[in-house]
């Protein structure tokens, strides 16, 4: 007998845990305990991925579940099939989810272009992890104080998972 489908909340939590392993950012960065963004990016991104292949997302989450407890880098390498020249649909979905978190755009799973992504929302654009990783801010949008350019950028400490932090 198959197990019952996970509840919506646990599936969302699972998606956040998966996303943390794939992006290197802590779950608290991806899913702040108090998140005023409406809708929260985690929900927006899961919905976006589901629209492009809910069954593939389910398969990816199931594969992630079997890897729990392993180092994040191992999980990411396995799910992305980094040594496979013809990655599976779940690996391609994982790649698109990484791009979604980093640049706020959905790239079709079969896309190899850097320019055919679609920005999924204004909040996705300003919430892209690429800005944080670069210690910069989106063009036209900054949460930093006036004159911030005269000081070192904010530290990345506290935003990365322990694996990533250890790797500098």
């Amino acid at each position, binding site marked *: 007998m198959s197990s019952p489908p996970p509840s919506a909340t646990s599936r969302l939590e699972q998606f956040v845990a998966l996303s943390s392993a794939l992006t290197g950012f802590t779950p608290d960065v991806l899913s*702040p*305990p*108090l*998140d*005023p*963004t*409406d809708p929260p990016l985690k929900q927006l991104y899961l919905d976006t991925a589901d629209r492009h292949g809910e069954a593939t997302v389910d398969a990816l989450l199931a594969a992630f579940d079997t890897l729990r407890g392993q180092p994040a880098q191992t999980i990411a390498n396995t799910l992305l099939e980094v040594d496979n020249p013809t990655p599976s649909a779940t690996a391609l979905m994982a790649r698109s989810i990484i791009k979604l978190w980093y640049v706020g755009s959905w790239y079709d799973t079969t896309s190899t272009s850097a320019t055919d992504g679609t920005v999924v929302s*204004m*909040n996705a*654009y*300003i919430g892209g992890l690429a800005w944080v990783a670069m210690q910069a801010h989106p063009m*036209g*949008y*900054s*949460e*930093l*104080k*006036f*004159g911030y350019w005269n000081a070192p950028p*904010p530290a990345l400490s506290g935003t990365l998972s322990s694996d990533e932090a250890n790797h500098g």
Partner: protein
Amino acid sequence: MNAHEDSSRHRRAALFAVVCVLGAGTGGLTGCKQAERVPTPGSGGDAVTEALDAGSAPDAGGITLSPTIPPDVDVPQGNPTLADLQHDFDAYSWNTFIAMNWPVGADGGVDTSQKPGQHGDNPTVWEGWMPSTSIFLPGGAPPPAWGAPPILPPICQGKLQPGEKFLTQVGKTPGLLSESVQPFDTGPLIDQQGNYTRFEILVNKVMFDQIVAQQLYSKAGQQRFNAPANFKCGNASTGEQGAIMVKAAWKPLENPADAARFHTATALVYTPASENPRIQESCTKQRVGLVGFHVGHKTQGAPQWIWSTFEHVDNVPTEEQVRAGTLEASYNYYDPACKDCVVNKTPPRPWDPNKKIIVNGKVFKSQIVRVDVRPQLMKDSARIHNEEARALLAAVNPASVWTNYELISTQWPTQPGDCATAELQDGSPAPQFLANSTLETYIQGKVPNVSSSCIRCHNNAAMTTAKSSDFTYLLERAQ
């Protein structure tokens, strides 16, 4: 543990009271919870006791009729959710509104023998605070002592009677008149009688004293200070207020009968002269009604300040109400009968407040609708607290003008940080966007960095030295 839990834990050392609310009339905020109240000077700590005695106790973190401005938000929940905290901040906002609009006696002090609106309308606490026009003076002159009458231009001198206020006007004159362009430089706000809305900004004594002590009222003083501003935070443990700013919007009341629905004042309305457009200097006495009320309070729990925004209930319909056709007969800034009026559009130039704007033979009136982008939980929280506050105020006097004001929402930081730290980042405000239709009329919406967000906008404020001014644009007015 987040900062809100932390601040809540500190407050837990304060007075505890168990408040069981079993009756109706609290907008669904029923149940039996543990309520915390900080004993503060005056009757703040007595409010719960009084309410219990009266059998009308609000829910935990609820609204009370008290003349004490809350020193900080009260967070009774152990592990609060976003919805819990919005509830707490909205209750804080109404408690602040009630305390700031508490009646004052002839000496300007709080009159504890009265309650707000007991006699319909009343002079208020905040109207005795220091207007920005008396703080940032030509040449960087020191401000007068707290409580001094407003500093008037020569044309107005001798015209101001005790108890009257001084409002500046829309115009090109920079510096001390700039609050007259509050709807954000994109144009004035004109009511349904064709009159310009007036604006003022005032600060409490805590903020005024710090500006004076640190000489932040002048460019020279700011250069000597040579550091980011860091205003005092309200502290629930001590009951002390933090720095508070209030922005108020007023509309002229041409028809005396309209006054019954507003908090009113008699004001000297000053229009400075201008060359382009050519505007004649004037100073006239007008009866005005309060239409917008926006308070910022810096506290330990919210060092990015708590931003509470209220409006008169007759101001504008929402976009949804317009679409559904569920409109009232009239509004302060919307004409239901006008089918071809363009909404949220700035008035045609030239803008001369001494004259009504005539377009195709008709007096121009702003056609404003609320672009309501609040998440549902914020809408629900505001509605529940408005109902609760209205019931409390109507119990004092069903004809109280204060029942005609509503909270739009409260913006607060979800990641507040430490008050002692200058130059805090914006703290990820909730709700993400918030606009008052009288104060941010033309920048409503949900475009990041473009649409109105109190904290995100004020996060960019700096002094004349380019150092952070701690979420206030007032300090850039220093001369």
